[in-house]
């Protein structure tokens, strides 16, 4: 059987547990031992934790349980909706010369992918394939950074893991062109998807990964993604994520990264659509002289709900981290930001910066923002700040007094606000793509 309809007559947790039992023993993604041995532990842990409710502090403002409690279908074997290049054309990024991988419903579609020539030793493939072609890499890194001990949804993903994206950049190798993963949902049914990605940049490797999520469907979907990244010594990984799956798509997207000495990791997300979007971003700087950067931009409309939940773990000395999340919230949209910075005992000379700025454009839009600092070292500089406000009236008047209409002045002010995040995108084609998308959105606010 290729799909399992979740039994909605029982509580949501039990639906998953029985689906797991029904399919237990089936080789869901090849025969990789490291992946399959975690599966049983994960479903047990999921059963213990249960789906998070608003009673948990970490989920206080995001009701994910009611999103999960819907009659989804859980696809368990590869589905191949027949799509051609015309179907994916609208989602390509102009002038982005990249190694392209297209994933449909969480599975790599080779016909639509165009990986091209990669440097020696670099692997860009599906995770399922990597499980058999590069078992040692998978063994070393899979399940090591996205801990499911306290995260029910990571446990659920780990229990049902099937496929996803895989990148391996060996030591000292530079991948000049970005690696572009286009994640598409194509379905008539309401679908629950659980892609799993693994990105490994070994010592001294340099790479850029761009992920874009879109949908070809109006069906209700819930995507529970887990991606793990490893950034070895002196390596540099940039990781971009565009979230634009449409108003009937919800997701929990867990991005967990671990860095080693002297490495730089930068992750930037831009969220344009989604019914409920929860990003769990976790970076652990497990080496000294690491630089960790995370940035996020949310451009809210209608009743979309976007929750960026971040964790910066400093467990070694002499590191720096920069975090900037910006929300522009229109209509009845909601933004949630929680940024935790943890500095362990002995992690001296840490420089951690965190900022969350929000423009709330209507009386029905809402922002909940909360910084959390947990610091056990005494020689550190940690700063955090949060601002919430409207477009500055004095600035608007200044622009209008120079002949700009009220509408143009507002759009310009919003663009200026978002620019600080957009400027952090190092790929020009992607930067222009995001800027254009943001401009279009802001123009639609005051149509």
């Amino acid at each position, binding site marked *: 059987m290729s799909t399992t309809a979740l039994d909605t007559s029982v509580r949501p947790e039990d639906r998953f547990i029985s689906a797991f039992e029904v399919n237990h023993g089936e080789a869901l993604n090849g025969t990789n031992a490291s992946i399959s041995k975690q599966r049983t532990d994960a479903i047990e842990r999921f059963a213990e934790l249960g789906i998070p409710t608003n009673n948990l502090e970490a989920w206080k403002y995001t009701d994910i349980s009611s999103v999960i409690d819907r009659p989804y279908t859980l696809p368990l074997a590869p589905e191949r909706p027949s799509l051609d290049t015309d179907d994916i054309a609208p989602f390509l990024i102009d002038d982005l010369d990249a190694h392209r991988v297209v994933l449909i419903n969480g599975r790599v579609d080779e016909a639509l992918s165009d990986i091209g020539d990669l440097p020696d030793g670099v692997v860009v493939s599906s995770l399922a394939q990597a499980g058999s072609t590069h078992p040692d890499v998978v063994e070393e890194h899979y399940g090591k950074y996205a801990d499911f001990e306290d995260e029910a949804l990571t446990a659920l993903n780990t229990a049902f893991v099937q496929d996803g994206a895989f990148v391996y950049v060996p030591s000292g190798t530079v991948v000049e062109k970005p690696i572009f993963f286009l994640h598409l949902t194509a379905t008539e049914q309401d679908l629950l998807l659980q892609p799993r990605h693994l990105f490994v940049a070994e010592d001294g490797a340099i790479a850029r990964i761009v992920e874009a999520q879109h949908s070809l469907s109006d069906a209700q979907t819930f995507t529970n993604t887990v991606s793990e990244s490893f950034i070895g010594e002196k390596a540099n990984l940039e990781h971009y994520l565009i979230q634009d799956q449409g108003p009937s798509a919800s997701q929990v997207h867990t991005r967990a990264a671990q860095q080693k000495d002297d490495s730089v990791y930068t992750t930037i997300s831009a969220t344009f659509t989604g019914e409920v979007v929860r990003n769990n971003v976790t970076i652990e700087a497990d080496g000294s002289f690491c630089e960790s950067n995370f940035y996020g931009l949310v451009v809210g409309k209608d009743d979309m709900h976007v929750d960026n939940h971040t964790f910066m773990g400093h467990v070694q000395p002499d590191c720096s981290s920069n975090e900037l999340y910006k929300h522009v919230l229109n209509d009845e949209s909601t933004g949630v930001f929680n940024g935790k910075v943890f500095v362990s005992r002995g992690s001296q000379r840490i420089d951690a910066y965190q900022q969350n700025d929000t423009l709330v454009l209507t009386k029905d839009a809402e922002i909940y923002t909360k910084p959390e600092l947990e610091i056990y070292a005494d020689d550190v500089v940690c700063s955090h700040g949060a601002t919430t406000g409207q477009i*500055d009236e*004095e*600035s608007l*008047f*200044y*622009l*209008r*007094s*120079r*002949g*700009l*209409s*009220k509408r*143009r*002045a507002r759009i*310009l*002010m919003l*663009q*200026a*606000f*978002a*620019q*600080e995040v957009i400027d952090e995108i190092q790929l020009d084609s992607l930067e222009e793509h995001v800027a254009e998308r943001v401009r279009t959105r802001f123009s639609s606010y005051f149509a």
Partner: protein
Amino acid sequence: MALLEIKNLHVGVEDEDIKILNGVDLTLDTGDLHAIMGPNGSGKSTLAAVLAGREEYEVLDGEILYDGENLLELEPEERAEAGVFLAFQYPVELPGVSMTNFLKEAVNSVREARGQDELGSADFLQYMRERADMMGLNADLTKRSVNEGFSGGEKKRNEIFQLAMLEPKLAILDETDSGLDIDALKNVADGVNKLRSEDRGFLIITHYQRILDYIVPDHVHVMLDGKIVRTGDKDLALELEEHGYDWVREEAAAAA
């Protein structure tokens, strides 16, 4: 017809029981430069704000005719398009808004309103360079965000530069000389003098006479307690410098 005609203008602050202007009358012909002087709190900046269209002020009585039309009916951007320009006392910093994009939009919106063709990017940059040269503005400033990190003097120079870019018919300078060092003061005055022309009127609001050493006004008005209490030529500014505002105040009180 006068370029600007202010008749019996009474202004208060919206939603508050405060009156700031108590019957201002002023007529400004095109080509003329008027200076309004007055102590702090006399209402001169409020007059500038009302002319530019700030919404927090409420016109209680009187009218303002600009080119014979009712100026008060126009939105701030419509005033700009019609050729009214206010050099701000406190120019706003706009991080993330590039000078070039901002000025291009501004210039093209007033050009469109005047029935002129929009300037393309190359023509615009050429025009901007010419005007920056003419105003002695450091061209590097045009590559930055509007006023962001500009010194006080650079901000004021930038206001005069924008004046040169937008070529208004009526330029109002609200305490543009305040806080300037001598070089910046001369630079601003020099810019204004270059921009004086037969088809442009200036209204310069200032606390001190000093800028009028460099910009010679055709008319000088003294504003006190929301009214123009005395009008004269450039010599009036010198008298004020010598005797202070108390002298006018006593005279005004005696006349009342």
